[in-house]
């Protein structure tokens, strides 16, 4: 069988999600944002919620998420996505409402909105891209930056006595009464991507079933901010991020 015979529409087994349009994504080569965008698009498509999904995009590299996934979107001021999501979900309870936020957006300027929306048990999902850095503005230290990690604002590495400790906001979320499902995933391998997709699906289903708020952290790379190649960044993440941000479910009230 020749290559041309194999490449026929009936043999197609994988392609870019239909909900993801052909706009060129502005993300740097290898950025985890792209993989997570694909998963969000696939899950919405598979759940048949294309006309019922509203995403809230943040300030950060994913500020233009609305240009890439063809659903309804609302742009939020920096860190305020969970507050906007609260309003939209309360006004439109039949919609799938989710935020998509970086760690600077969610765990720094938006900490209050994040904690309170989760604690109120809003029926939303928060997708949290933790790349341990402010990507968009040039790789500054974030609350999530690891001890010893070098960034443009801590060029000698983060020090606890000077900069405080990295914030495990997902662990905090798991202690809140309002949260239903809190999980930490990653997207550096095929297996990890499959798990992350299942987690996003579960979170979206919980939001639609009124089970409370859901937080899906994705430990991510920012090769530009970290000054590594995409392949090196995945390795660095596995070696340095996973020991401090271990993967897995932190809370799941649907199985208790």
């Amino acid at each position, binding site marked *: *069988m020749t290559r041309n015979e194999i490449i026929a529409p009936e043999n197609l087994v994988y392609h870019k999600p239909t909900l993801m349009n052909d706009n060129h994504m502005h993300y740097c080569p290898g950025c985890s944002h792209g993989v997570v965008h694909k998963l969000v698009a696939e899950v919405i498509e598979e759940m048949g919620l294309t006309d019922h999904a509203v995403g809230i995009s943040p300030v950060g590299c994913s500020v233009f998420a609305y240009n890439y996934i063809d659903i309804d979107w609302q742009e939020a001021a920096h860190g305020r996505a969970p507050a906007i999501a609260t309003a939209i979900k309360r006004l439109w309870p039949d919609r799938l409402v989710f935020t998509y936020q970086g760690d600077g957006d969610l765990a720094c300027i938006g900490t209050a909105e994040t904690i309170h929306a989760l604690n109120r048990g809003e029926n939303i999902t928060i997708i949290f891209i933790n790349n341990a850095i402010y990507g968009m503005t040039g790789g500054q230290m974030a609350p999530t930056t690891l001890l010893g990690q070098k960034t443009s604002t801590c060029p000698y590495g983060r020090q606890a006595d000077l900069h405080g400790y990295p914030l495990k906001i997902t662990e905090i979320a798991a202690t809140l009464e309002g949260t239903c499902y809190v999980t930490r995933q990653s997207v550096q391998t095929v297996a990890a991507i499959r798990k992350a997709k299942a987690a996003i699906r579960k979170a979206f289903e919980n939001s639609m079933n009124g089970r409370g708020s859901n937080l899906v952290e994705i430990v991510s790379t920012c090769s530009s901010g970290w000054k590594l190649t995409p*392949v090196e960044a995945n390795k660095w993440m596995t070696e340095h991020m996973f020991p401090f941000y271990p993967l897995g479910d932190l809370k799941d009230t649907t199985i208790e």
Partner: protein
Amino acid sequence: MGKIKGAIVINEERCKGCDLCAVACPLHLIAPSGKVNHRGYPYVVQDDAEGRCTGCTACAIVCPDGCISVYRVKSE
């Protein structure tokens, strides 16, 4: 038993040359093309002269930019 045969099509203009697909391919069938697309990114190509690709989809799943379409057939 039928043999599984695959093929991929890479959208060269969408590719950013991150090499994540090349690392993910268990048969090491993807490599830099040595060429640059209109956006200035060095894109990758599949080098599969012997038709070894199984269409496992690993490369396409890890591609952050959704550049890869995968085709698969079971041949007799």
